[in-house]
């Protein structure tokens, strides 16, 4: 049951780029660049869904603020990409265009590492991880559970969104970052680069999946699930739930940030809209549709929901919100185990 997913993801990440590169445009088997981009995007979303499922499905913690970690990862990568534009921006300055526009003379302190890809990726993973650690520590220590946790994570995300909307914060305000040109000196808009990023996302998803599987099958994972089912009893048995929940939350946040890092160069834009409450709640529905508490489910859910979204926004744009809203209702009412539960029921 677990192998087929790995194989499916691996096949997809190899097949789509292959069909894109190997056959010339116009050939019956050629897949256009659009599909490579779409697949890359879905793979990143699948990582988010997996990350969310790790704490929701296995730890019983519903975070409605994972959009924040995703966006922070994306912004971290975006800072590097902005610096890579060099002097090719509209104002031909060493500084990113929006800083010239704000009449800033030098880089603010939080851009110190933005010239180095490795340094910036480190920051893009460490900052969300650290934020999750600090925020989670205080939340879990105060034994905030269930809906209260969901509400404060959402409040945090909204606060961050408002902060990033401000020009003074130094992240491009409303417009965020866009117009990226190259990564590590190589141009971004070549087919080879697009395929490379897409494959990297696939590899990252498989890696995250393997890590999550190892974690959930370990002793740590068993205790996490025990906390989900009866936190009080676990505490009475002498375990400290804070440590388990906190580590799960931090790992999940870092995974989400990784997805953001891979997402931004493929999509070519990052703005505070990624931190809107709706974006974070949508992640929850990817995991819920696929099936919480399984690791395959969220991946399938992310592909299913976003695939449906792509189809509907092209065919019947007004209908998409009905479908999405209906999915939220139907899954919670009729499919608490998601598509995986449905599959299991059919097997019986």
């Amino acid at each position, binding site marked *: 049951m677990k192998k087929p997913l790995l194989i499916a993801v691996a096949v997809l990440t190899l097949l789509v780029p292959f069909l894109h590169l190997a056959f010339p445009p116009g050939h019956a088997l050629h897949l256009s660049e659009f599909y490579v981009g779409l697949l890359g995007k879905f793979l990143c979303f699948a990582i988010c869904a997996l990350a969310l499922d790790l704490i929701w499905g296995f730890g019983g913690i519903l975070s409605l603020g994972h959009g924040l970690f995703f966006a922070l990862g994306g912004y971290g990568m975006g800072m590097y990409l902005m610096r890579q534009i060099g002097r090719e921006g509209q104002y031909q300055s060493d500084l990113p265009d929006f800083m010239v526009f704000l009449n800033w003379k030098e880089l603010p302190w939080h851009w110190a590492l933005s010239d180095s890809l490795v340094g910036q990726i480190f920051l893009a993973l460490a900052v969300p991880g650290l934020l999750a650690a600090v925020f989670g520590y205080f939340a879990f220590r105060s034994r905030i559970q269930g809906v*209260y946790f969901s509400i404060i994570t959402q409040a945090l995300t909204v606060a961050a969104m408002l902060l990033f909307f401000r020009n003074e914060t130094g992240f491009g305000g409303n417009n965020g970052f866009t117009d990226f040109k190259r990564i590590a000196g190589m141009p971004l808009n070549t087919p080879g680069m697009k395929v490379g990023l897409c494959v990297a996302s696939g590899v990252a998803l498989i890696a995250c999946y393997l890590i999550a599987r190892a974690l959930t099958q370990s002793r740590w994972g068993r205790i996490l699930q025990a906390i989900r089912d009866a936190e009080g009893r676990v505490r009475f048995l002498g375990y400290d739930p804070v440590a388990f929940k906190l580590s799960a939350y931090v790992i999940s946040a870092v995974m989400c940030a990784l997805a953001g890092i891979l997402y931004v160069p493929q999509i070519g834009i990052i703005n505070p809209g990624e931190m809107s409450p709706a974006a974070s709640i949508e992640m929850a529905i990817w995991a819920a549709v696929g099936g919480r508490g399984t690791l395959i489910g969220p991946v399938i859910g992310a592909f299913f929901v976003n695939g449906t979204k792509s189809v509907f926004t092209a065919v019947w744009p007004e209908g998409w919100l009905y479908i999405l809203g209906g999915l*939220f209702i139907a899954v919670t009412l009729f499919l608490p185990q998601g598509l995986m539960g449905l599959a299991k029921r059919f097997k019986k």
Partner: protein
Amino acid sequence: MIKRLLIGWCLALLGFSAWAALPPELLTRIATGEGDDRVAALNEAVTQADPALADYLQALLDGRVRLREGKAVVAVEGAAPPEGEEPMLNNRLRREIDSALAGLALLSKDRDVRAKALATLREDASAAKLPLYERALAAETDTKLRDQLGALVAGAKLSSTDAAQRRAAATELAGSADPTTRALLLERIGSETDAATKAAMKSAIDAIGDRLAWGERAQLLFSGLSLGSVLLLVALGLAITYGLMGVINMAHGELLMVGAYATYCVQQGFRAWAPAAFDYYLWLALPASFLAAALVGAAMERTVIRWLYGRPLETLLATWGISLVLMQAVRSLFGAQNVAVENPGWLSGGWALLPNLTLPYNRLAIIAFAALVLGGMALLLAKTRLGLMVRGVTQNRRMAACVGVNTAQVDTMAFALGSGIAGLAGCALSQIGNVGPDLGQSYIVDAFMVVVLGGVGQLAGTVYAGLGLGVLSKLLEGWQGAVLAKIALLLLLVLVIQKKPQGLFALKGRSVE
């Protein structure tokens, strides 16, 4: 002689009766010559305050005046201009003529024309026209305009070349409570050379500042109170559905939207069928918005929420789904753009307490309305049979069922009640803001903030939290700007939940558990 007749003829055509009062030489001097001399001539002409001058100046601005052999000739409006050289008008002269025209308009018989002229002149009171202003002041009967004219005269005196007159004007202005007077004084004090006058101006500025400070403080308090009552209205419905029933209703904002759109529909109905009674449409819109939102709420409870009691996370997701559907349904029915909801006549305008403090009627009405709804809800919960049953079911569901309460029905009723109150809030919101499909989204975070801060299970906490948050956020806004204020409040919410998950004003004792 012929030229003089020509002017006379033209002026007569324009309907001038007293052209003799304005010597033609003066008019010609306005039209040609050195700039300073022309301004002096203009001011001299203005002091005579002849209504005919206004027509001549207007003709000059319109380019209907020509100079022929050193005399000004005026053409009738609409007619081709007579032969001759067109007088030069530079910007300074145009400005002077505009100001002279406004000064002359002060003598108009029409109150609106006078008020408009006063508004224009406020910015540039010139000492040269002081006689004109004083004559206007003597003739003015309207008290409000009299006050403004008085300030104008004082302002003109401030521009006088005589230091004693300037000092007298500054002392006179100290009695004012008008922000523009203070701005005028602040501007003039910089260029003042006489020390005694400067001191008089300084004390006048301080005196006005003191008077204004009260207005500003009251304004801040009022806008805080107004925002607080909006928050309270928005949160009151949630205080029932979430505070009493424990349902996390993410579609609460959309119930507000339903109420606002119901108001819009009633308004459109009145416009189509009873335009004469348009001012009274709100009295029908209130029950309509309550019913519309209550019906939607009851339907939600019967079809979805009922099956999810005790599973708050699932409720959260399902109601979020409902909110998406409701939003899209409104977009499909009414379009994605905002719709226009007009205030009835009796809600527009405001109550001017101080020159810098005007309380808009719609804001006042919302404060009163919030108090009414709150009172009604408290009575309903405390005194009626439905309230008794709702309290019983929330306190001990099984016990209530044992003594014969139909708990399922009470749940539906209570949820519909909370939703209906949200609808009322939506009707109120339609009077102060935009009505669009996104209306609910902007209030949902605030609403939860109020209820969570206020504490679950009781109304009083919601009241403190709503009003407190309103005033606090206005105070923070004045200090650090709207965005940072909002961020600060959100972080405050996070902190409060950390420390007191049951809210700041939670009940103590066993009922909490």
